[in-house]
Each structure stands twice: as structure tokens, then as C-alpha cells.
């Protein structure tokens, strides 16, 4: 699939959600190993490790031979999607390890969640985002890129090819919607 990556990325940018799956499938095994390795030596506070996690993760993706990245934004966009999936797995593992104890609260600096508390439940966020993607694919993508990839609104607008104002509108709607979903879940 090596030669197809650029094509897949372009298709994904153009709005074909299925195009991302083969890319993630290609990256995921390596990342999972990385995550597991981290899980074993992790400490109770995750904020400390956020930078390390992100950077190791990036390096793993970048070192994946045969991937031809179309610049920073594409890279980050894909990395964000993969990272979200990894964080969900991470949360699941953590919850299982605690035998159903309290949920893992992620407070990764730079990530902004529609929650007034310092932490959010990653598994719930993931579910809500999946739901959002079914209703409004573009808004979900904006959330992914904004929260997990760390792209700015302008960068997102250039990746998905819409006006920056549209990205802002998508984001504020998605944020309100996610907050509604998560608070409904919490209560």
C-alpha cells in the first residue's frame, strides 16, 4: 500500500472517512507496542508523560518506512486520529487494571475538552465522537484535529479545504454537543 498513502490521504482529506483506516491499520501495531511499554512504566500522573507520549508516538509514525507524509498538517491529522484510538485502548487497559476502579482522567496539556473539570473520560469522549461522526463527519474531524492533533483552526481549514470560519463554527458546535452528551452521561 506504500505508494497509495498519498492517494489515501488525499481521499481522506477530501472527505472519505474509509480512506484513513488502511493507514491506521498500517501504523497501529507499532503504536500499540509503544503504548503497552509505556503503560508498564507509567506513573499515577499522566500530565508528566504527555510530551513523552506524543513525541514517541510521532517518532514511531514518522519512522514507519514507506509512509510519505504530505507535510506537517497531514501528519498531525493522521497522528491525531491514531492517538485518539490509542488513548481509548490505554484507558480501557487502565480501567481493567484497576478492576473497574475509577476511570482514567486524561489531562494532556494542549488538549481541550468540553468539560469544566480537569479530566474527561476518554472512553466516553470516543463514543460521543463516533456518534458525532455519524451525524456530522466534518465536525467530528475538526474535533479530532483540534484536540488530538493539536492543529490550529487555520491549519484544519487547509487540511479539509473549508473556510477557517466554518472550522470555528464546527468546533464550537461540536464542543457544545459533546459537553451535552458527556454531561448527560455523567448525570
Amino acid at each position, binding site marked *: 500500500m506504500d505508494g497509495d498513502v498519498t492517494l489515501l490521504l488525499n481521499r481522506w482529506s477530501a472527505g472519505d472517512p474509509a480512506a484513513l483506516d488502511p493507514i491506521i491499520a498500517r501504523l497501529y501495531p507499532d503504536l500499540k507496542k509503544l503504548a503497552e511499554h509505556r503503560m508498564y512504566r507509567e506513573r499515577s500522573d499522566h500530565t508528566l508523560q504527555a510530551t*513523552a507520549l506524543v513525541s514517541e508516538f510521532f517518532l514511531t509514525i514518522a519512522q514507519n518506512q514507506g509512509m510519505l507524509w504530505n507535510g506537517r498538517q497531514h501528519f498531525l491529522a493522521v497522528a491525531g486520529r491514531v492517538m485518539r484510538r490509542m488513548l481509548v485502548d490505554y484507558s480501557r487497559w487502565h480501567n481493567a487494571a484497576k478492576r473497574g476502579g475509577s476511570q482514567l482522567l486524561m489531562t494532556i496539556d494542549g488538549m481541550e475538552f468540553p468539560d469544566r473539570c480537569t479530566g474527561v473520560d476518554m472512553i466516553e469522549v470516543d463514543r460521543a465522537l463516533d456518534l458525532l461522526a455519524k451525524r456530522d463527519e466534518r465536525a467530528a474531524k475538526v474535533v479530532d484535529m483540534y484536540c488530538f*492533533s*493539536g492543529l490550529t483552526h487555520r491549519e484544519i481549514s487547509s487540511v479539509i479545504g473549508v473556510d477557517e470560519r466554518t472550522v470555528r*463554527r464546527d468546533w464550537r*458546535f461540536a464542543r*457544545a454537543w459533546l459537553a*451535552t452528551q458527556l454531561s448527560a452521561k455523567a448525570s
Partner: protein
Amino acid sequence: MKTADWKKVRAVFEAALSAAEQDRPGLVNQLAGSDSTLRGAVLELLANHQDESGPDADRPAPSRVFQDGELVASRFEVIRFIDRGGMGEVYEVWDRRLRLRCALKTVRPELTGTPASLERCEREIRVARNVSHENLCRVFEFIEHTPQEPEARVVPCLTMEFVDGISLAARLQRDGPFPWQEALPLIRQMASGLAVLHAEGIVHRDLKPSNIMVTRRRSGEDRAVLMDFGLAKDLSSDSFESTGISNAGAPYFMAPELLRNTTPGVPADIYAFGLVIDEMVTSRRAFEGGSVQAICYAKLFESPIPPAQRAAHLPDSWNNTILRCLDSDPAKRFPQAQDVIAALSAAPESPPKRRKLWIPALLTALILLPCILLALLALRPTAASISVFEIENQTGERNLEYLCTGLTNELIRRLASLRETKVIPMRASRSKTIGTDPGRFSLGGSLQQHAGQLQLAVSVLDNRTGSLLWSGNFDRGSINEPVETQSEIASSTVIALQQNVIFGSAGRATGAGVVARALIRLRSLLQLPGGAAITAPPTTSNLALDKYMRARELIVQDPPEAIQSGINLLNAAIAEDPGFALAYAALAQANINFTGYAYNQTQRRIALARQYADRAVSIDPNLPEAHEALGMVLEREWAWNQAREQYALALGLKPSLASSRRRLGRLLIETGHIEEGVSEVRRSAQDDPYDPSGPNYLGLTLFLAGKYQEALQVLEKAAQRQENLGGMHNLADVHAELAILSTGAERDYHLHTAFGLADRVTALETQIRTDPRIRTPWGDKMHAHFYSIQGNLAAAAPYLERMLTDMKEHLTSPANVAMVLTAQGRNREALDLLEQCLEQRDPYLPLTPSMPFFVTLRKEARFQSLIKSVGM
């Protein structure tokens, strides 16, 4: 909301947001009409909507560990909460036991949670406590607070020096970036602090503007204090653990290799230092990205945006220095913090467009008296424009034309080299150009002859009022040294002008003493020995004389470019007058001087010097300067007796030739006639107190003669007058020798001073090097040598390494390497190198017998036989 039409929900939500907050519910009611599901969904969304202005606004502040007034560990009274950082919280506290104010920092429990991590933390603190430097926050002790509550965990804390100031981050936020010139003092201090940490084997690992405090000294200067090297690891300890904490630094200031999870080393600090400098002088960041992810990406895969693109008028040297600090390859960064300073200091002290003023400013400092510098410091000159007219030859003797032209040129050159002074050369005499008034002041003069006495009258007019501001008469019984006469008269005029014209009335008040001293000096000149009648001018060509005059000062300057320009001028002077013996002698001297900056050219330059000196002597066997030049060449050829003969010959022709006398003096010392040599050099300094090389020469002589305290005085005074490479090197060597001879605080003081000078030499070398292959041989030698004396062989190693490379490439003398090895007690290797010097007839070898640093070799038979071979 599940059943509501998605598109309608979004549309109403967007519409409501475009209205004012209080109007939104009404608008939603209106737009949703009877669709209550839609209305409910949108109202719920609106309730969860946050304005982008402040998602953090209603986030409760995390609670503090200690409250004001609380007593920590039964000893520290909390005065106030200061800040919260990555490591924990910081408080200002009062230590009841020691009765002093200090800072107390809580340490995140996970950093000390296990016995292993606690032990590591304590070890780090022990290391940090051993470091004491004014640019490092002193760490006092590690304490554990046990709260009153039965279940509460112990709170580990650290006490440290309380630094009363604001962080560099806050300062930058408040005042914006620094102009680069103003940033340098703080950067220099940070480098000193870092250098001390690194010398102790500590890597800071979390250097960033929020970790640097800026506080005000009593003198009003800013003092930078590096904080929080509590996260630092002891490099020399091999039990370093790669844990999550290793990546605890702020991502923006983290070196890319840390993101790759490698062990942090000095290069990571250099990287962070580069970014701190960048933050100080630029208005945008080197890596763009609003999130951890984007910054990590940029660090890992992108290059920094060059600082020059983010700061107007940033000199190239700053741009390049910062970029080199930020090199993604740690090996390509500067090896040490002080190297960063050296590279930054390579920048001109003034903005780029004024760069051309720099060389003349440097030149002036040579002959002008220190009092001028003092006056310059004491008073802020106002800009003055002065037109300089030709000195008129009213003697009726055509053969004195050259003196008038030479004097005019000297005056123009000297005045032009004064800061804040604009000189307008008028290529005509004032009497012929009445009415033209281009400047604020005008200077003119005439040379007259009365009853066999020469008199020069110089006057300065205020062009606005037409009044005479100053006039001076310089009487001369005879002119047997036209070149010196020119210099002396011109410099005296400039001194007087500075005090009376440029500084205005304020200058007159403070400068009266200076003028008086200048006049006394002039009178003493008239009493110089040698009453011969007017001799023939050294050249018949005014053009050639002018070129020679300009070259004369250039060839004793530090930058090799200056020497080269001097050589070019001399060649041009010879082209004008092929019989100009004085110019040939100067060419010989210039080529010898050049070898001090380009060791690899030694043999070639000495051969050239030999040709020029021979030529000078053959043209004019009665020219003392020619014999002196030949003496210099013979010294390099190890023909000691012949060299001594030539100097004696020069002095016989002209007893006042101070340069020959000091060379003779040093030769005497090197050949073991210490007292005799010292007295000759002392006499030379008296004969010509204005000889720019005199004090350094005397200092070195005293050093070789073992008169360290006096050497120190002489060299310090010389260094105050002008920073030059040789002088700083000699001064540092004296301090190093005194460090060897002392102990305790005194030893530390001397070493500290020597290192400071070594840094300045490195900076100067970086600034003046002509060939990029030339590194900083003198600075490297000094660092390697002084670290070796200190016993810090690890720190000496990289410098020694560079010296060895330089030696292989013939960029430094093996004698220098031998000196470092001797300091390390590696006598056999040192002797091997010195024997190599003998084969190559190295010019530095003859210095070794008298050089105090080789004292430990003196009893070695091989060294004795070396000295014999050198023939001293």
C-alpha cells in the same frame, strides 16, 4: 436531541450565537416555533456553549499545600504563596532557626515516593548544594513536612535562596523582547551560571525563561539567576534512570533528542539556552505550534525559523549563534555555554550599518592616553563636526612639506576615530578658504621657523560665532624623528581638542588636568636625547609617508586583517618610493607579528620578514628600525647573539628607540640574564610611555622574571587601557601561576579570573579569525591549561582534543600542547612534543626555559638537553 433534525439544530444554534447572550432564548423560541424537541436541544447546547475567551475562567484554582502563616517542618513560617510550577509549589518563607528569608518549594510526592527516588532526589540536592555562584539559585536543604492530620502524606520540600525579582518570562511578557545589545549582559550571566553547573557535572535540563529570575543588584544592574536545577541529574553518576521524569521539561524548550527519550546532556542545555536567547531578542517563536503535538512535530521534523526573520536588525552572528544552539544534532551545537557567549560577542558592539566605525575606534585607543578614555566615560560627548584644513608650511623649506601633510593626515585620522565626531577634511589651507563653513568647528594650523626653531601653531574656531576656541603652540628644537613628532603633536592636539571643543564647558572643567598633563608630556618630548640637525625625511614621497603612518599602527593591532591591511599599505608605500627603508623594516615586523595569529604561516612569514629586514638594512645601514627588524628575524631563527647585536646596533643609532630596548630586555631574560633584562624593559617603558605594546611586554617580562605581583599590576593597567589578545593571555597566565602558588579562596579567585580572561580571548579570537579553519587556538590553550591546573581533567579534555587537532593541522604550536600536558603531570609526553618543536625550530620553544609553567620539567635531563640545543 436524538430525534431533532440535525441540520435544523445546527442552523438555530448558529443563529442564536450570532445574537447577544440575553436575546438568545427568545430567538430560539421564535425560530423553533412549535418544535419543542428542537428548542430543547438548542437550549441545551447553548447552556453547554463556552465563549472562546475563557474556558479556564470558571475552573477552580487548585488548592495550595500550605496556607499563609503556616509553620512548615516546625521551622519555616509561610509568608506568601509565589507560584506553581512543574515540580511543585513555591512559597516565600521565614526560617525561624537561621532567622532569614528563603524560598520553599514543595516536591511532587512521586519524585520522592520510593526509597530509590528519594535517594536520587537527595543525591541531586547534595550535588546542587555544592554549587555556589551568583547566577545560580543556591539550594539549602531537603526537608520533610509531616502534616498534623493523621492520614496525611509527608510533604517533601526543598529550601533555597529567595530571589526577589521577576522571572525572565514575566519580564519579557511585560516589556517585550530586548534589543540584542541590551540582552547580552544577562545572557552572559546565564552562561556563567550554566558553565559552573556543567563544570560540576550537572545538567540543568529545565532551562526556560520562567526558570530564570531577574533581580536588581544594589548597583542597579540586572542579575540573572538560574533556578530549578533541582531536576538536574548528576552526570558523573552512572545510576541514571530513564523514567517518565526525564521528559518533564517544558516541551517548547526541550531539545529534540529529549523527545527521542535519550539521556539529557550538556547539549540539551545549550539547546535550551539558545531558545532562551531567541526568546529574549525576537518577537515570535522559533517553532510555531499552539499545542504539545504541533511543537513536538516541529521539534522533531522541522527547522527553526531563523531568528533574523523574527527580529529586525539582529546581527548575523546572533542569528548564526542561536541557530547553532538549535542544531538538531547535539554534536554540532556549541560544546559549552561560554562558547555561545564568545560567538555572540563576535558581533560588533554597534548596529550593522555603523560597523565601519569599529576599526578606526580601535585604532585610536592605541596611542591616546588612558585619560581620554576616562574622559570619554565620564562625559557624554555631543556630536561635533569639525573641518580640518591643511597645516600650512610657512618655514620656506620645501623639505618640510611632508611634515605638514603628514601632520594634517594624522589629525584627520585621529579626530575621525573619535566617536561622535564628524571630520570634514578640507584639502586646502584655512587661509585660502575663508568663507567656507561646512562644520561646527574648524581646525587649521601652520608650521613656522624662527631662528632655527620650528613651531607648530594649531587653532580651532567655532564657526558659528567665529571665536577662537583653542590654540596651541608646539615648539621643537629639531625634528630628528619626523614620524614620532607627527604622532605626538597630532595626539596632543586631539587630546586638547577633546577637552576643550568636543566636550564644551563641562569638558573644560573636568579636563583641565588632562590638558596640563598633555602639555607636560610635550615639554618632556623636547628634552629627548639626540640633538642632531634636521635629518633628511625618511621618504621624499608624501604619499608614501602617509601610507607608512597609517600602516604603522595597523601592524601592531589584534585583528590579522588589520596587520594585513598594514602590509598592503606598506607595499603601496614601497611602490611609491622603492627606497623607503623604514617601510621595509615595518614589513618585516608586520610579518613576524602575523605569525601570532596564524601559526601555520610561521615559516613562510619569517622567511619573508628576513628578506624585508635585509633589504631595509641594505638601503639604509644607519636606520635603527632596520636593525631592530633584523634582530626580530634573527631571534626567530634562534640566532640569539646576532639578534642581540642587532638590537644593540639599533640602540647605538638611537638610544630612545624603546621597542629595540624592550626586545633586547626580553632576550636577556630568555637567555638567563634576568635582572639585566628586567631593567632594560623597565627603561624602555620609561623612554616611551606611549608605546602601545610596552605594558604587555613589560608584564610578560616581569612574569618570566618571577615578579608576579608587579606583572599583575602592569598587565591589569594595560588591560584597562585596551583589550588585546596578547595582554589578556599574559594576564591570565599570571593569574594561573598565582593559582598554582596559592590555596583556598585565593586560588579560586585567581582561577576564576584566569577563566574569565580565557573566555574573553576565545571571544576575541572568534571575532578576529580570518580563516574558518582556524578555531580559537589561544582560548583553547588557555582553557585546557587552566582546567588542567585546576585538576579538572574532564573539562580540559575537549579543549586539549581541539588543540591536538590544531597541532596536527599546524594551527597551534606543540609547545602549547606540551604546556597543558605538563600541567597534567604528563611530563614524558610533554617532552616528546618539545623535542618535536626542536626539529621544527618552533618559535615558541625558546620561551619554555623561562616560562614558570615548565618548572616541573626543569630537572629532567631531556629538558636540559633541549635548552642546550636551542642554544640559550
